[in-house]
């Protein structure tokens, strides 16, 4: 998995609340059994004029300069709620997004992010709105810096906002860990649990 340490990049503001994974990638855009070829379907219902077309809706933020080059997304509360489809994260990553800053995230979506090299950053709604104002208010759209080592977001005006992230997720992103290989280091514990549990709850073992 691609590592995440620190990025300085254009941030695109999309501050609607409850943006669901159906909106991030509609089901009809998931055309093959795989993780790739999904960027074109990102936000398809909002990004294109008509469903299924590739005719860009000029007002949509990711179709506008300089946000076409955004690597950071500023979003409203409960971003990524709804369907568990990891295609939403794969599509965001393939399009170029590496960090998403929002007041809260859908739980499955946030878990999918850290397993695919995207950092979900939780900051207060007022801070997210302030960041959005700063990137929107200046035509040059000054970049934000998201630093996972320091656990900070630095705003264009220089203000630094600390964010919390648990060690497991942080390590996964910083090291680009393969979760399965990492867990299998504890294989003895898993097998021991299973052996005991088989006696405790035999009905589980078909």
């Amino acid at each position, binding site marked *: 998995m691609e590592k995440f340490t620190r990025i300085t990049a254009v941030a695109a503001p999309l501050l609607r609340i409850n943006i669901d994974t159906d*909106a991030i990638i509609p089901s009809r855009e998931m055309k093959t059994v795989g993780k790739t070829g999904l960027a074109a379907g990102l936000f398809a219902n909002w990004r294109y004029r008509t469903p299924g077309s590739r005719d860009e809706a000029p007002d949509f933020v990711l179709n506008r300069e300089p946000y076409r080059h955004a690597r950071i997304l500023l979003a*409203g*509360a*409960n971003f990524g709620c709804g369907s568990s489809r*990891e295609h939403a994260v794969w599509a965001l990553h393939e399009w170029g997004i590496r960090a998403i800053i929002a007041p809260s995230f859908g739980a499955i979506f946030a878990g999918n992010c850290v397993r695919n090299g995207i950092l979900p950053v939780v900051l207060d*709604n007022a801070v997210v709105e302030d960041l959005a104002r700063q990137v929107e208010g200046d035509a040059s759209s000054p970049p934000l810096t998201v630093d996972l080592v320091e656990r900070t977001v630095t705003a264009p005006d220089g203000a630094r906002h600390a964010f919390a992230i*648990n060690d*497991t997720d942080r390590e996964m992103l910083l090291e680009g860990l393969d979760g*399965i290989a990492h867990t299998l280091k504890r294989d003895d514990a898993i097998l021991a649990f299973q052996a005991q549990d088989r006696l405790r709850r035999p*009905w589980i073992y078909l």
Partner: protein
Amino acid sequence: MPAFVCCYIVVVAKTLIDKLWDEHLVADLGDGGSLLYIDRIFLHERTGSVALKELAAAGRRVRNPEQVFCTMDHIVDTFPGRGDTTRVPGGTDFITQTRAAARAAGITLFDIGGDDQGIVHVVSPEQGIALPGVSLVCPDSHTCTLGGLGALAWGIGSTEAEHALATKTLVVRKPRNMRVRFDGRLAPGVTAKDMILALIGAHTAGGGVGYAIEFAGEAVRSLPVEARLTLCNMGVEFGAWTVVVPPDDTTFEYVRGRPYAPRGETWDRAVERWRALRSDDDARFDAEISLDCAHLAPQVTWGTSPQHEAGIDGVVPDPAGQADANRRRSMERALEYMGLQPGTRLRGLPIQAAFIGSCTNSRLSDLRAAAAILQGRKVASGVRAICVPGSTRVKRAAEQEGIDRIFREAGFEWRESGCSMCFYAGGESFGFEERVVSSTNRNFENRQGPRTRTHLASPATVAASAIAGHLADVRQLAR
């Protein structure tokens, strides 16, 4: 000076979620992280296909294939006589690749044409794969449905599914504990669907974010198991990590005799253990809320989030009255999408389609409730009405009771089982700006079709509305 020797035995009171967590704890990873043992894994052809494929590509094997199940529900067509060909673009690949991967991995597949095929969260309890106290995951957000049986069940992504398949565990951070008490008894015509919609309406679609939630209270205890599954199904629409109902005699009676349920002496041992699956009397919750269910009306959504909902006797609210700017903007956008004006009465809003199905409301009891309304009545002209039973077993059981005839005679299409038009995947859909009353779980923009306008409701309300040709109050039709 006297010397005191004190001996404390500290017994920490636990919530149901604590107990389920501890029962599956393989290792404490520090900083709140846990390695949890996963008893059972369920897959479907939409997201499970990717997990199986990537796992095989990485040269890894499914650790305990006898504990892994897969069904075809998301992509498969629901027309009579269906096969592998579907109207979903690229859909056939999902079906054939899932079948091949399932066979190669040696897992149990409930395939198209088989007796046990159906929607994953309908099949799982029906087969006794989901049981009280099991940990069960599926790359599908509505896995929380199975909390209705007292299972610790939650939705995951495809990468996590690979992890669970390869290691029999998941790395999880323990959410905070919440208890929601549903007080009172439901009035006739009011259902579990109305309870969960009312909860989300009162506390928003993000109200449960960061929590594992126990659903408790008189209204929950008096629900049959299938209704508890409905209640828990939309826990994810409340933002919860998962939700769970303490298992009781109602649960045990439901589970007894199911194909994968324990039998004989093992059954007795299992029930004994399951009886301990309840929160201790003095257990502390990080948050507690309650909802009065005795005075609840049938609920219906008016917008594009499940939190956009009201009683059927209510009106479309005015965003101007919403103090929170983000919620106000969300309401304004929803009203534009839905083609509605503030103050419009919900009852009487003309509809063009009615849908009964999905992992929320497609079980036998749901179909019976709808049939009780439909019997001897006709769907209003101009309304397209479709019923998609949740599993092949549900469909056959309904046909044995003659329920299919009631649906057909009323003017409903009667389909093979699957997720069907709960969502639009490029195949079948409801029409542009058509207004659909639907027993499903998501009223998101474009969920059921391009610019389709979805109103979520209970199966009884869907049936009553289909007959009326507009959103209707089932209490006025009930016999």
